[in-house]
C-alpha cells in the first residue's frame, strides 16, 4: 500500500520590536538573567498588561506580506497552565479571534514544481521565560527561572495541512523566512530561537481523503532539521502501519544527535488549557487606515521582484532567484544599477565576488565595505576597458580592504590602461623594431607569434596597455 503524508506547520516567529508585547522592557538578546524584567512580565500581583502597538503593526505587516485577511477586530485569550517559566500561569494569546485569517505561500520544488500552500491563520501571543538547569549558575540539583524572554512578542503562523513531502516543509520554512525578512517583521534566526517550528504529520493511504492520526513534532531548530525530522517521522509512521500497528495521537521531540523523534506526551496527557477571553485586554480594533498605510510601507515581495528582474533586466531565472532571495541582496543590486545600468555584468559581480565575501564572513551584503555605487564604478571600469578583468579582481580586494572608491584607487595606483592609440602605436613600433626577425616571420604567416608580440608590448607598457587596442594596432602595423 502506498501512503500519502500530510504535513501542516505551526511556526512561531519573534517579532522585531524594541520593547516587549505588554510592557516597556527591552527585547535585546543576551542580557544577564532577569535584567529585562518588570512587574508586568514578571506577573506580579496587581500588574496589568498594555498591548504594544508596534507588535500589532508587525503582525499586520506579516499578514499583509503573506496575503492574509487582516481582521478589523481580534481578541486576546488566556491559555492556562502551570509551569515555572510562565509567571502568570497563563499565556496571553489569540485563540478565538486571531488578527489574521487565511493567506498563502508559494514554494517551488527542486523539480521546478510550483505549489501554493494555504495558511489557516496568524495570531499574536507572548513568549514564556526559560528555565536554566544545573550548576552553571548555582546548585546542580536546582533549576532557575530567567524571565528576560517572558512576554517577548511572537506571532504563530499556522498552515493548512497541505504539504506532502519533507522537502516541501523545508521549502515552506525557507520561503516564510525570506518573506518575513522582506517585510522586516523578524530576524528569523532559528539558532537564537526567533523562528521555531512545530510540524503536524499524519499519513493516509493514497486516495483516502480522511486525515490519519496526527503526530506533532517539536524541537527542530534548523531548516535541515525540519526536513530530516519530517522525513524520519513519515518513515516511522509508515513502518508502524506496514507492520500492522496503529499510531497514537501524541507529541514527539526531534533528537538531533540521534536523528530520531521520540515521544514527549500522549493525547491523554495533553492539557486542557481552559482558554477564555482575557478580561484585562480589550478587543484589538484595527482601523483600515492603519492597514493601508502599513501595506504602502511594505517593500516589493520576493516573488514579484524575481519576476521583475527577469522581465525588466533580462536576468536568467537562477540569477533572479538568487538576487531576490534576500531583500538586502535585491536592494543592493538595484542600487548598483542606479550607478551603472548594466544588469547582467553587475549581477555577475555581485553573485561571484560580493556574495562570496558575504558567505565567507557570514555578514550582511551591506557590511562588506563595498557600497553598491562603488561596486558599479568597478564594473564600469572593467566594462569600458579602463582596467582589465584581472585588474578588476585585484581592485575588488583593494576596495574590500580599504573601503575606498575604485576611481581613487585606479588613479592613485595608475592602473588605468593605455588606450591612447598614438601612444600605443609608438610602443608597438618600438617593439617591432627591437624584434625584426620575429616581425618578418609573422609577416610570412606565422600568426602564432601574435602572443609573443602582445606579451612584449604589455611588458613595455608595464601592463597598462589596453589588450584589445594592442591587438588592433599590431595587426595594422604588421600587415
Amino acid at each position: 500500500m502506498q501512503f500519502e503524508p500530510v504535513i501542516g506547520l505551526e511556526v512561531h516567529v519573534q517579532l522585531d520590536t524594541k520593547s516587549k508585547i505588554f510592557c516597556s522592557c527591552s527585547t535585546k538578546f543576551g542580557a544577564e538573567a532577569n535584567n529585562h524584567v518588570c512587574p508586568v512580565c514578571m506577573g506580579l500581583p496587581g500588574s496589568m498588561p498594555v498591548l504594544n502597538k508596534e507588535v500589532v503593526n508587525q503582525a499586520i505587516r506579516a499578514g499583509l506580506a503573506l496575503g492574509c485577511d487582516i481582521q478589523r477586530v481580534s481578541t486576546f485569550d488566556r491559555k492556562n497552565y502551570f509551569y515555572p517559566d510562565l509567571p502568570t500561569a497563563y499565556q496571553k494569546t489569540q485563540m478565538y479571534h486571531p488578527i489574521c485569517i487565511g493567506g498563502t505561500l508559494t514554494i517551488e520544488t527542486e523539480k521546478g514544481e510550483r505549489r501554493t500552500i494555504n495558511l489557516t491563520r496568524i495570531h499574536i501571543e507572548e513568549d514564556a521565560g526559560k528555565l536554566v538547569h544545573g550548576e552553571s549558575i548555582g546548585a546542580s540539583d536546582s533549576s532557575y527561572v530567567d524571565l528576560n524572554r517572558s512576554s517577548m512578542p511572537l506571532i504563530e503562523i499556522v498552515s493548512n495541512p497541505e504539504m506532502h513531502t519533507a522537502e516541501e516543509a523545508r521549502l515552506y520554512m525557507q520561503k516564510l523566512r525570506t518573506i518575513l525578512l522582506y517585510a522586516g517583521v523578524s530576524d528569523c534566526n532559528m539558532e537564537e530561537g526567533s523562528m521555531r517550528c512545530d510540524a503536524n504529520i499524519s499519513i493516509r493511504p493514497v486516495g483516502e481523503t480522511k486525515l490519519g492520526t496526527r503526530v506533532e513534532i517539536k524541537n527542530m531548530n534548523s531548516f535541515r532539521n525540519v526536513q530530516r525530522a519530517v522525513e524520519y517521522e513519515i518513515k516511522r509512521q509508515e513502518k508502524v502501519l506496514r507492520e500492522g500497528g496503529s499510531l497514537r495521537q501524541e507529541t514527539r521531540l526531534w533528537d538531533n544527535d540521534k536523528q530520531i523523534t521520540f515521544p514527549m506526551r500522549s493525547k491523554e496527557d495533553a492539557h486542557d488549557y481552559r482558554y477564555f477571553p482575557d478580561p484585562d485586554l480589550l478587543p484589538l480594533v484595527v482601523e483600515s487606515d492603519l492597514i493601508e498605510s502599513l501595506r504602502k510601507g511594505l517593500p516589493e515581495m520576493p516573488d514579484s521582484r524575481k519576476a521583475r528582474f527577469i522581465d525588466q533586466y533580462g536576468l536568467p531565472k537562477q540569477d533572479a532567484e538568487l538576487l531576490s532571495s534576500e531583500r538586502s541582496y535585491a536592494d543592493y543590486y538595484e542600487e548598483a544599477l542606479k550607478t551603472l545600468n548594466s544588469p547582467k555584468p553587475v549581477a555577475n559581480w555581485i553573485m561571484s565576488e560580493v556574495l562570496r565575501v558575504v558567505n565567507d564572513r557570514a555578514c550582511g551584503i551591506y557590511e562588506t565595505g563595498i557600497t553598491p555605487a562603488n561596486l558599479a564604478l568597478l564594473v564600469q571600469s572593467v566594462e569600458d576597458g579602463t582596467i582589465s578583468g584581472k585588474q578588476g579582481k585585484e581592485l575588488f580586494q583593494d576596495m574590500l580592504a580599504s573601503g575606498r572608491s575604485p576611481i581613487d584607487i585606479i588613479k592613485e595606483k595608475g592602473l588605468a590602461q593605455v588606450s591612447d592609440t598614438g601612444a600605443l602605436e609608438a610602443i608597438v613600433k618600438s617593439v617591432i623594431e627591437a624584434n625584426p626577425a620575429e616581425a618578418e616571420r609573422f609577416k610570412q604567416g606565422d600568426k602564432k607569434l601574435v602572443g609573443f608580440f602582445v606579451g612584449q608590448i604589455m611588458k613595455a607598457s608595464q601592463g597598462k596597455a589596453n589588450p584589445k587596442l594592442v591587438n588592433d594596432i599590431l595587426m595594422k602595423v604588421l600587415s
Partner: protein
Amino acid sequence: MDILKLSLAELKSALDSKKVTALEVVNLYLDRIEKHDKDIKAFLHVAADSARAEAKRYDDMRAKGEMVPPCAGIPIALKDLIVTKDMPTTCASLMLKDYYSAFDAKIVEELKEAGYIILGKLNMDQFAMGSSGETSYFQKTKNPWDLTKVPGGSSSGSAAAVAAHLVPVAIGSDTGGSIRQPAGYCGVVGLKPTYGRVSRRGAVAYSSSLDQLGPIAKTMEDAAFLMDTLSQHDELDPTSCAQVPDSFHKNLNANIKGLRLGLPKNYLTDDVDPEVKSAVLAAVEVYKNLGAEIVEIEMPHADVGISVYQMIANAEVSSNLAKFDGIEFGYRADTNDLNKIYSQTRGEALGVEVKKRIILGTYILQIDQYEEFYVRAMKIRSLIRQDYDNAFKKCDLIIGPTSSTPAFDFGGKSRTPMEMYLNDLYTVSLNLNGSCGVSIPCGFTKVGMPIGLQLQGDMYAEQTLFNAAHAYQNATDWHKREIL
C-alpha cells in the same frame, strides 16, 4: 472643633488654615486605632511611624509657607489588596503573608500625590472572596454597631474602620457588592464607581472584568471629594476610561427636582427583611418629598444575576489566582518536587472559600463545559446589560435595598453557602452591567443595626448618582447617628 465630625473638605480647610496640624489629626486617628481596633480588628497593618513622619513633613511645609498638595494631611487607609511598596499586601491570605510589592498601585500614587496620609492596610475577606469578612486568614473584623455581628464583606475592614472613626475615609473594592454591602451593614457610604473610572493597576485581581476600586466614607460628600482624586485616566490600565470628569465635589447639587427614580417591580419580594423593606419604602417617600418622580421599572433578569456572576467571576478567579503557585513570590510549601510545590503551596496557603471558587472556575472553563457555562453566562450578561439600558431610558437612577437583610451573626450564614451568595442578589447585577452605584444609610433596625439604601446609576452617571445621594443625606440624619 470635633475633628471626627468634620467633612474631608472641612478637614482640608482646617489644615490649610492651620487650625489643626496634620500631626494632630494623624495622632488622633492612630490613638483611636490603638484604643478600639483590638476589638474591631479592622487593620492588618498600621503604618504609625511613616504616617507621623509624613504628617510632620506637611506641617513643616505649611509652617514655612511652602506649597503643599491639595489634601495634605488627610488620613486614609487601604483595603489590603492594593499593593504598596512600603507596607505588606496580604490579601488577608497566608499566601501573601509578609509580601511586599515591587511597585505602588496607581491609586496609591494618586493618593500620595494629593497629600493623603496612608495610615495602614485594612482587613478583608481572603482575596476579596466573601460577604462577611470571615474568610480572612488573619482575623475577623467586627461590626462596630454590634461586635457579635459581621461587618459584611469583602471590604470588611474598610467599612468597619470608617464606621468606628478609626480613619475618616477608606478605599475598598467591589466585584459583586464588596464595597456597598459592608457599607450598608456598617452604616456608612460605599461607592462602586463605573468600571474603568478608577485605575485597577495595583489592585490584586479577583475578577478583572468586574473589579472596581472605590471609597467608603461617612457621607456622599466625602466620597465625591475623594473621587476627585481617584478619577484619573491610567494609560497603563487598558480598561481605564479616558474621560476624566470635572470635579464631582464642586458640582454636587442637592436640588433633584424632576429626578426620575426607578423602582423595580420584582425587587421588594417577601425574601427581603421587613425592616429593610420599610426603610427603603420610607426613603422613597423622602425622595418624593424632595421632588423626585418615582417610576416603576422591570429588571427581568435580576434573579439570574447571581448565577451569571458565579460563572464569570469564578472562571476569572481560576486564572487570576493561578500565579500564586509558590514559584516567584509568596508562600512556598516545604518540598522540592515541582508538582508538590504547586499542589501543597496552594493547598496549604489558600483559604477554603478561595479554593472552592478556583475549583468551580476551573470546572466552568473546561473545554466540555465552556460553551454551556462560560459562553452562556456571557450571553446572559448581555441581557442583564440590556435590562439596565432599558431601565435607564425610563429613569435616571434605580432605587432599592443594598442587601435583603441587615448584618447577621458570625458563623450564622457560613454554613449555608447559597444563602451567603444570595446576600449579593441586589448588588452583583450592577457589576455585570459595569455602571456606578452607592449604598447610603437609610435607617436602623429595632436592635440598632444600620440599613443600606442602594442607588444604581448608568455608565459614567456618577454626578447624577452623587447628587441624589447627597440630597438624601441633606434631608436625613441617619449618617449622623453615633455608635454608643
